[in-house]
C-alpha cells in the first residue's frame, strides 16, 4: 500500500508541477495573433506591408481588378478559345454564384479589415514614434479609401447615375465589426464617396507630420501625400467636382515632382521594372516567380496569354503615334490569326512591370476633362495636347470649339493613353456612354446606357 501511495503521489506531483502549464503553452509558429502583432512597430508595419502585398495580389491589381474594365470595355479580345480569363465579365454573365469578381470582392474586404485593424490597434504599438504612427495611419486611410473606391467602381453604377447619388453603392467598413455580425444593406453611392473623401482627407492631414516606415523600396511604391491628392483628383472627377479636379491637378502638375516620360523613352518605360518618372503611386512587384499581370498580355505565355487588343482600340491610333502598333503592340499569330498584344506589361517573372495605380498623364487628362466640363476649352485643349503630342510630336494640335467634341476627344485620348490600366469601362459608366464593341465575340457586345450591367452583380461569397 505504501508503494501505491508513493506512486499516486509521484503521478500527482508530475501533473501539478509548474512545468505543466509551460508544457501546455505552445506558440503558433506560422501565424501571430492580432494582439501580438501590434505590440511593436516591426509587427505593425508587416501588417501594412500586407495591405500593399494584397493590393498587388492576383485577386486585385495583378489580375482580376485590372483586367475587368478592359474585358468589359472592348479593349481586348481573346486569342484563346478555352480557359479564358474573366469570360463571364466579358459576356456580362456574372451572377451571384459564378462571378469573376468574387475573389476581388473577398480580397478587397480582407484588405479593408487589415487597414481597420491597423487603425484600431495603432495605440498599442509601443516602439514607434508618433511620426511613424502617423504614416502607418495615413497609409491605412489611403488604402482603405482606394479599396472602397475600386469596389464602388466595379459593383455600383457611376456616382452621377442618380442626381443625388442616392443609388446603391457598396457596404462601407470603416471600423472593425465582429466577424459574425450580420451585414445590413449596402450604403448609397454618396455615402461611399463621402467615406472615401473623408479617408483621403484624413490621410492628407497626416502625411505632413509623418515619417517613412519602410526601409526598402522606392517612395513611389507606397502611398504618399501626393498619392492621396491624386486619388482625390480621380474621386472628384467621378463626382463631377470639376473645380476640385482642376485645383488638385494644378497642384500636382506644378509641383514638378513628376514629369511625363518623353516620347523616345515611352515604349521602353513599360518594358522595365524601373520606377516611371511620371508615376505618383505604383505597386512594386519585386522579385517574384508567381506570375504577373503581363502574363495575360503575353502571347508567348501558353497558359495565360490571351488578352489580345481589339481592333476597336487599335483603330483609335494614328500610325505615327508611339502608342500604336508596331511600337507599342506586338504581333503574334495564334491559330492562323493575327493578334496584337500590348507591350505595357510585357515583362514576366523578375522583370514584371509594376502596375501603375496613378500617374501624371491621368492627372493631365483629368484636368483637361474638368476644364472642358467647366467650359474652359482652351485650358482643356492645352492639357489634352500635352498628352497627344507627347505620343506623337509630329501631330497637329487638336482644336475644337465644341464642348462635346472636346470631351469626346479627351475620352478617346484617355482610352489611348490609359488603356489596360483599369479605366476604360469605368469612364463609359461615369460619362453615361453606351457600350459599343464591334470587334467582339461576346454574347452581349453592346449596351445602351443606362443598363444594370454597368454595375457588376455582387457575388455570393458563401
Amino acid at each position, binding site marked *: 500500500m505504501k*508503494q*501505491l501511495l508513493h*506512486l*499516486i503521489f509521484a*503521478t500527482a506531483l*508530475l*501533473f501539478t508541477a509548474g512545468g505543466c*502549464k509551460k*508544457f*501546455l503553452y*505552445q506558440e*503558433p*509558429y*506560422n*501565424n*501571430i*495573433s*492580432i494582439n501580438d502583432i501590434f505590440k511593436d512597430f516591426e*509587427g505593425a508595419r*508587416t*501588417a501594412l*506591408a*500586407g*495591405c*500593399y*502585398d494584397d493590393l*498587388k495580389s492576383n485577386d486585385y491589381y495583378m489580375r482580376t481588378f485590372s483586367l475587368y474594365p478592359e474585358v468589359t470595355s472592348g479593349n481586348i479580345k481573346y486569342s*484563346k*478559345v*478555352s*480557359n479564358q480569363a474573366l469570360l463571364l465579365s466579358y459576356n456580362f454573365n456574372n451572377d*451571384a*454564384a*459564378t462571378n469573376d469578381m468574387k475573389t476581388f470582392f473577398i480580397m478587397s*474586404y*480582407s484588405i479593408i*479589415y487589415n487597414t481597420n*485593424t491597423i487603425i484600431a490597434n495603432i495605440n498599442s504599438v509601443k516602439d514607434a514614434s508618433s511620426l511613424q504612427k502617423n504614416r502607418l495611419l495615413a497609409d491605412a486611410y489611403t488604402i482603405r479609401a482606394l479599396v472602397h473606391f475600386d469596389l464602388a467602381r466595379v459593383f455600383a453604377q457611376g456616382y452621377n447615375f442618380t442626381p443625388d447619388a442616392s443609388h446603391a453603392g457598396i457596404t462601407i*467598413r470603416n471600423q*472593425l*465589426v465582429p*466577424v*459574425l*455580425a450580420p*451585414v445590413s444593406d449596402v450604403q448609397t453611392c454618396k455615402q461611399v464617396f463621402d467615406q472615401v473623401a473623408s479617408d483621403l482627407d484624413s490621410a492628407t492631414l497626416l502625411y505632413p507630420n509623418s515619417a517613412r516606415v*519602410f526601409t*526598402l*523600396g522606392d517612395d513611389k511604391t507606397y502611398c504618399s501625400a501626393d498619392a492621396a491628392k491624386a486619388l482625390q483628383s480621380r474621386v472628384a472627377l467621378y463626382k463631377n467636382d470639376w473645380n476640385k479636379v482642376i485645383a488638385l491637378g494644378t497642384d500636382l502638375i506644378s509641383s514638378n515632382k513628376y514629369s511625363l516620360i518623353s516620347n523616345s523613352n515611352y515604349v521602353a518605360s513599360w518594358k522595365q521594372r524601373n520606377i516611371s518618372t511620371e508615376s505618383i503611386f505604383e505597386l*512594386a512587384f*519585386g522579385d517574384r*516567380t508567381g506570375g504577373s499581370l503581363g502574363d495575360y498580355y503575353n502571347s508567348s*505565355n*501558353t*497558359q495565360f496569354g490571351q488578352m489580345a487588343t481589339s481592333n476597336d482600340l487599335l483603330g483609335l491610333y494614328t500610325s505615327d503615334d508611339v502608342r500604336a502598333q508596331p511600337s507599342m503592340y506586338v504581333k503574334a499569330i*495564334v491559330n492562323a490569326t493575327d493578334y496584337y498584344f500590348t507591350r505595357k506589361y510585357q515583362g514576366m*517573372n*523578375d522583370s514584371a512591370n509594376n502596375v501603375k495605380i496613378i500617374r501624371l498623364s491621368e492627372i493631365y487628362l483629368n484636368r483637361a476633362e474638368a476644364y472642358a466640363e467647366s467650359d474652359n476649352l482652351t485650358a482643356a485643349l492645352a492639357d489634352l495636347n500635352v498628352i497627344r503630342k507627347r505620343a506623337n510630336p509630329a501631330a497637329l494640335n487638336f482644336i475644337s470649339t465644341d464642348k462635346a467634341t472636346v470631351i469626346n476627344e479627351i475620352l478617346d485620348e484617355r482610352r489611348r493613353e490609359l488603356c489596360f490600366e483599369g479605366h476604360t469601362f469605368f469612364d463609359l459608366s461615369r460619362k453615361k456612354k453606351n457600350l459599343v464593341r464591334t470587334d467582339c465575340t461576346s454574347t452581349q457586345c453592346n449596351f445602351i446606357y443606362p443598363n444594370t450591367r454597368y454595375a457588376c452583380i455582387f457575388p*455570393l*461569397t*458563401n
Partner: protein
Amino acid sequence: MELFFYESITFDQERFKLKFFRVMKITVVLLTFCCLQLSAKTFAQKVSVSGKDMPLEKVFNTIKEQSSYTFFYDYDVLRQSNPVSIDVKNVTVEEVLNIVLIGQPVLYKIEGSVIVIARKEITSKSTEKFSDPIIVKGHVTNESNEPLAGAIVTLRGSSRVTACNENGDFELTLTPDEAARGVLIISLVGYNKQEIRINKRNILNIELDKNIQELTDVIITNSYSKPKRKEEVTGSISTVTSEQLQANRPIESFDKMLEGLAAGVQVEQSTELGTPVKINIRGQNSISPLSSSNVTQLTTSSQPLFIVDGVPVTEQRKGDEPLAFLNNEQLLNPLSGINPDDIETISILKDAAAAAIYGANASNGVVIITTKKGKSGKTKLNVGYSNGWAQSINKLKWLDGSQYHGLLKEMYINDRRSPFNAELLAGANNINTPWFELVNRYSTFNNIDVDLSGGNDNTTFRLSGSYLNQQAIQKGNDYEKIYFRLRVDHKINNRLNMSITMAPTLTSKNALNVYSNVPIIPNAPSYNADGSFYKFSTLGVPNPLAILAQNTNSHSGGSFNGNIRFEYNIRKNLRASTTVGMDALQNKLNLFDSPLNATGESKGGFAQIFDRTNFSWINSSQINWSPVLKKIHKFDLTTGFEAQAQSTRLLKGSGTGFTYYRLNELSNASNQSSASSRQNATSVSIYGQGTYNLLNKYFATLSGRYDAASIFGNDVNATVNAAVGVGWIINKEALLSDITWIDMLRLRASYGSTGNSRIGSYQARGLYGFNNTGYNGNTSSSPSSAPNAALGWEKNNKSNIGIDFNFIKRFNFTIEFYTNILNDAITPIPVAAQNGFINVLANIGKMRNRGVDISLNAQVLTGKFTWNTTLNAGFNKNVILEIKNKNALYGASTEGTVLKEGISTSAIWGFNFAGVDPATGRELYTDKTGKVVSVFDLDRNIITGGSYLGDRLPAVQGGFINSFGYKDFTFSINTVYSFGSNILINNINENNGRNLSNRNQSVNLLDRWQKPGDITNIPLLSASTNPLVYTSSKYMYDNTYIKISNVSLAYTFSKKTFRKLKGTRITVYGNATNLFYWYRQDSPNDRNGIREYKFDFPEAQTFTTGARISI
C-alpha cells in the same frame, strides 16, 4: 431474512429506516457468509498440477497442498498404479482425479473434504485390457504448428481421458481393441472439437482448427487495461481478428480491409493507392464542412482515433500551415505504416462506456490495433508470397474522336459560329486517340512477408518483415512498402516485465495521376510525326504521355512506430505500469513539371520538394488494482496520467527556370524559393476506469478522463468526459440457468460523453499570417483567421443498449441500439465577406446519430464440411437537431451542401431536374413551389431555393462474410453492401457542352437535344448560353450497391505430404477482389451511370495467387 424484513414494515418512518438498515446489515453479513461457504467449494478448490511420470502419491500431495482436501488410501493399492504425466492449470480436483486415474486400478470418492482412494473391482474385460496394453502417443497443434497444451483427449464412449502437456503431447494406454477401432475426441477452448480414428496407429499428429466464435471470448477493451472476457464488457466493442481481417488480400492498408467486417463501421473507399481513407463509426460524428474546395476550412476531424499498441497514430491533416503547403502538398495514409500481417486483433470502440477513457479524442470512436507477439517454445518461421495482376473495371466511357468532333462542331454552331468556323475550331475528325488505354495498363502486385517468432519462459520475440510492390492500373502510379516490426517481451524478474516494440517502415509512391485530372480531347494525336509529344497549345493542358515521360510526382517516406513498456507487480492484484511510445513519419514529396510540356513550359520547369516530419510521443503511467472482496465483488480499477506532444515540421523548396531540363534538383533552378512551417500541440490527461463484477453476473464500468490541451493557444482549455456502463448476464439467473442451449444472454447499457479536440491549432484566435512574397522586400502579413473567442469544445453524448445472445455454442447474435448526440458541433461557418473573412470556426449546433448495429456470427456447419458465416448491418440516421439562430447554412451553389435543422449533415442539397424541354432543348427544373420552370428562370444561385435531394451516407451498410472448409480446402467470399446513399458526381464530364472544348466528355452527351421534339435528358450543347446548375439532381446517382469484394480459395497440403518435415505446413491460395458489383441504379446500355462515374481514379479488380509456408 424474510422474517426480519416483514417484521420491519411499520408506519413509523424513522423506525423503519433504522430497522431497515439493521436488516440490510444482517442480510449482507448473511449473504457474505453464504457465499463464503459456497466459494469454499467452487472457488477455492481449483488446482494446478504438472509433472512428468509422477507417482500418484505425488499428485495427491500436490492437490493436498493447494486445497483443503485430505486423502485416505492404502499404500499397497497405490503401488499397483502407474506414474502419470499431467499438466493442468486451474481445474477442479475432480477433473485432475479423472485424468490421473484413467487406466489405473483405483477409483476415488469424495466425502466432504476427504477423498478416499480405493481398489477397483477388476472385471474380466479390463483384465484383458491390462494384459496387453498399447500406448498411443499424440501431438496436438494449431494451424500455425504451435503445440496446444491442455487439449483434452477423450476416448469416445469411455471415461478414458488425458490432457496434453506443454509440448502438445499426450499418451493414452489402450487395449488392442480400442487401438484398432477407438475414436479419440480432442477438444480445447477456442478450437473446434475434432474426432480421429486411431486405426492402430501408435503416433498421431492432430491439428485443431480455431473456433472463431470462441476466440473472441477475450477481447481487448482499450490500451490501458488488460484484455477482458467478453461477458465482463459493458461497452460496445467490435473485434476483428487476424483471421477475419484476411491480410492475404491485395489491399495496401488495413483500414481499407475493414470494409464490411464490423457492424456500424463504414469505410469510404478510395481507389487511389496509399491515400487516406475515411472511416465512419456509427455514421459521421462531426459536422461536414460546407466547402470542400477551400482546404484551409478546418473542421473537427471525422476520423476515429487509431491506437497501435498504446501509441496513437498521428493523423495526417492540414492545419494552419501556409498556403504553400495547403495547396500543393499531397499526404500519405498514416495507417499504411502498419503491416496488416502483424495485426493480431482490431478492437473498435463504438460507445461511450468503451471509449470515454480516451476522453477528448474519442468522439468518432477508437480503433485499437494490437500486434502479434512471440510465444515461448520452438522458433517458428512463416514465409508468405503472393503475386498477381489487376485490371480496371467500370471504366468511364468517353466519346471517340469523330463523335467528339461532331459534338464540338455542333456546340460551336449552337453558339452562333458559322459552320465553316465551327468545323475549323472543332479540329480533326479522323483522329481517335484512345487516351484511357494509352495511360492505363494491367498492373502487377507482389507481396512477400516473413516472420520469425519464439522464445522461452522469460523472453519471447517476434520479428517480421514485409515487402509490398503494387502498381495502380494507371501508369505512373505505383506503391512500394517495406515493413519491419520487432516485438520482445521479457520477464526481468518475478515482478517486473518489459516489452518493447519497434516498427520502422519505408514507403515509396509515385502518383502522376495523369488521366483522371485531365481527360484529353480524343481528336488530337498523341505524338507528332517526328515522334515528339503532341502539344495542345490552345488548350493549355499537357499531353498525359509527356507527363508520364517527363514529370515527377514521387513520395519517399518512412515511419517509425515504437514503444517500451514496463509493468511492475507490486503485490498480488496491484500493478503499476508505464509506457513510452513514439510515432514518427517522414515524407519527402518531389514534384517536377518539366519545361518540355505544358505543365512547366511557361516557368522553364517547375520543381517542388515538400519535406514533412511528424513526430509525436506519449507517456502514460498508471496503477491497476484488481481486488476481490469477499469473493464475490471483483473490482478492476485503473488510474493513470498521460502526457503527449505532437509536432509537425514542414519544409518546402521550389524552383523555376531550369538550366537543363534533365537536371531537376533545385540547385539547377534559376529562381528558387523556400518555405517552412511548424506546429506543436501538447496535452496532458488524467484517466481512470473502474469495473465491478458481482457474482460474474452483474457488471458495471465507470470511466472518465480529464484532458487539457494546448490547441486553444493561450487559454488552456480543459474538458472532462465520463461514461457509465452496466451489464447483466440474464442466463445466469436461476430462472434460465437450466436452459443449456443458451450460452449467454446478456443485456448491456451505457451512457456517457466523449469529445473531439482535433480542430487544428490556435483556431479560436484572430491571426495574422505572413506572406512569403512580401512587399518590396519588406515582410508582410495579412489577417488569416478571424477571432472567435467563444469557440469551445464539442461534446458527444452517447448512449447504447445492447443484447448479446449466444446459443447452442454456434451462434452469436448481437443487437445494439444507440443514440449519439453531438453538442456544440464545430464547423467553419460562412460569414459575410464584408466583415473581412469568408468563414470562421464556430460552435454551431446540435446533431444526432441514431441507429442499430446487428451482427450474427455462426458456425452453420461443423464437421467434415464447415461453414462459418458473419452477417453484420449498421443502420444509421443522422439529423441536425439545431442550428444556432435557426438559420440554415448553405455551401456554395457548386457544393450542394447544407446544414439545416431536420436533415442530415451529409445531405445533398440542390435543384430537382425535370428533364429537357423538347421544344427548346433547355433544362427544366421543378422549383420550390412544384412548378416546372426553365433553367433560365430558375434562381439557381440562390441555393436556399433548392431542396433536399439525398444523403451522401448510407442508411444501412455492412458485410456478409462466408467461409467454407472441406478437407484441406477453404473457400471464403466477402460481400459488402450499402443501401440508401447517393452520390453527386462531378458534372464536368457530363453537362451541357460548356466543357466540350477543353476536354473529352462522357458518351452520355450523344443523347443531347438536337431538334424540337427530341426527348432526352441532355440539353442542347452550348458553351456560353446554357446556365450550369451544379447541384442538379441529374448529377445525383443512387449509390446502393452490393459488391463481392473478395473471393479466396486456399489449399493446405496435408501432413502426409510433409511427413518428413515435421511441423511444416504449406498453404497455397488464390484471391480475387472486386469480382462483382450490383447497383440498384444500373447504367443504361453503352452509357455511363453510377458504376462508371463513382470513382475518378479507375477502380481495380485484382487477381492474386500466393503461398504460405510455416516451419
